């Protein structure tokens, strides 16, 4: 990379880095100034220390919870894609059921977590996978259907002019066109699956799970540990989201609408 490009990159990121540094410094400073706050919001240094001390347990807990999330993500997204293909291929089915999917997405699905625990057992990993799966299913379904059905009519007409059958149209036009929407849904699902796993554990779960760790730590006012747990949860969440985003970039680099914001 040329010197100018490197310089550009650094300048681009400078404000964000400045904000981060300022934020951490402010956190550290303000907590020191208002000493009483430490009870609720420990200093970053304290959190870091706790994180280091408990890193073994936290890592294991994180992995366990991440497994729940990943399993739920795979199950829910897989089913979501399957049903989306079904609904896109057989329109009447789609038009009949999509309103329900949208409505279901508007419901606090997470409230069903206790029921999942009752069905599959508190300590059973599947109980959290199930709630994560249900959370992932609807966004993936809705987004993928939107992607499969909102194709420019002219692309379809073009394929018809080549005497391409419906199956061919589906494969060559709709599915590639739906990828950006699919990934939008998958990104949402990656976040939701983590939330589903952790919040599901708040209703009961094995001791070595991350959500349970955080909850117990909060209940015993061991806030540094709770925050350390949150950091771990966030780290897994960011990594998960980032992986999906990376996969998206690799498979849909052609899509011009992928730019997030217009450059002035």
């Amino acid at each position, binding site marked *: 990379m040329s010197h100018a490009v490197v310089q550009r990159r650094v300048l681009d990121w400078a404000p964000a880095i400045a904000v981060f540094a300022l934020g951490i410094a402010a956190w550290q400073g303000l907590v020191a100034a208002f000493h009483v706050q430490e009870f609720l919001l420990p200093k970053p240094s304290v959190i870091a220390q706790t994180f280091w001390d408990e890193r073994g347990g936290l890592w294991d807990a994180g992995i366990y919870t991440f497994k729940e999330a990943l399993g739920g993500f795979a199950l829910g997204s897989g089913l979501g894609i399957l049903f989306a293909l079904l609904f896109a291929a057989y329109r009447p089915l789609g038009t009949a059921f999509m309103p329900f999917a949208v409505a279901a997405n508007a419901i606090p699905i997470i409230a069903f977590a206790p029921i999942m625990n009752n069905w599959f057992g508190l300590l059973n990993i599947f109980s959290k996978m199930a709630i994560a799966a249900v959370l992932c299913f609807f966004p993936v379904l809705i987004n993928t259907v939107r992607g499969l059905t909102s194709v420019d009519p002219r692309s379809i007409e073009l394929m018809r002019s080549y005497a391409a059958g419906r199956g061919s149209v589906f494969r060559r036009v709709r599915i590639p066109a739906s990828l950006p929407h699919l990934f939008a849904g998958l990104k949402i699902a990656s976040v939701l699956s983590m939330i589903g796993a952790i919040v599901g554990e*708040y209703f009961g779960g094995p001791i070595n799970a991350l959500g349970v760790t955080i909850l117990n730590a909060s209940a015993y006012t061991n806030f540094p540990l709770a925050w350390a747990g949150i950091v771990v949860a966030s780290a897994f969440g960011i990594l998960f989201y980032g992986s999906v985003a990376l996969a998206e970039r690799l498979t849909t680099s052609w899509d011009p609408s992928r730019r997030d914001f217009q450059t*002035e």
Partner: protein
Amino acid sequence: MAAIAIEQPRRTRGADTARGAKRVALVLVGLAVFWGLWEAYRWIGERAGVTWPFTVDDTNMPHIHEMLRVLTKPLQPGGPTLLHYEWHWALFTGKEALVGFLLGGAIGFALAILLAHSRILRRGLLPYIVISQTVPILAIAPMVVLGLGTKGVEPWIAVSVIAAYLTFFPVAMNTLRGLLSPDPRSLELMRSYAASRNDVLWKLRLPASLPFVFSALKISATASVIGAIIGETPASIQDGLGGAIVNFNQYYSTAPTRLWATNIVCAALGLAFFAAVLIAERLILRRAPENIA
């Protein structure tokens, strides 16, 4: 952007009511189908002794009509019906969600307007706003409620804060996207009028952002209800639906239908919020119909 057709015929009152009635009928049919599937699975599961993925019995899969019937029964002997309680819990949780929704929405909206006008601020803050979307925010819920509780803050306020937090990010991101959505031509046009930044904001950016804002509000409507319910659970706030879920969960084996009934009420609350935003969107937004195949 150019439409091919000339003006479309005005929709008549009759056509609209017919369409609405059709929708309602479709919904009822769908619910009936779901009801049927549930009861069918139950019937078969019980007869066949299904144990995977879970045992099919009265505790795990109560009859749907039982779930509804328990609402009419008193919660304590001789006291008001469960529905009476659920109604009050729903109002309590709804209030928390609404306060959070309005607060989070307002802050998100204001922040987006600020960010739309400052590239430096965008570069500085956007990465964190984006990252925060990937953080399991609900994970912080117990700490916020418990922590603020120890400082003497009323629980419902803490819960509203959670709801606000969940609302804030989708609204901020989407509003920003919407504010920056006008194409270069539209901006050139405004320049040709020597329009001030304020003019461009009010006459172009804000109206252009409304569809984006509404799609965020639809997400936020649900998110704030979820935030309110979950926020109540760690502290077992007795006055709301979250607390009810925790309680009924504890006594699930003795009265499973109560938990299910509460879930139904939660669903209704979420739907109510969503529907309210939908209605507002329909009233406020006037845009070209999508041209999709």
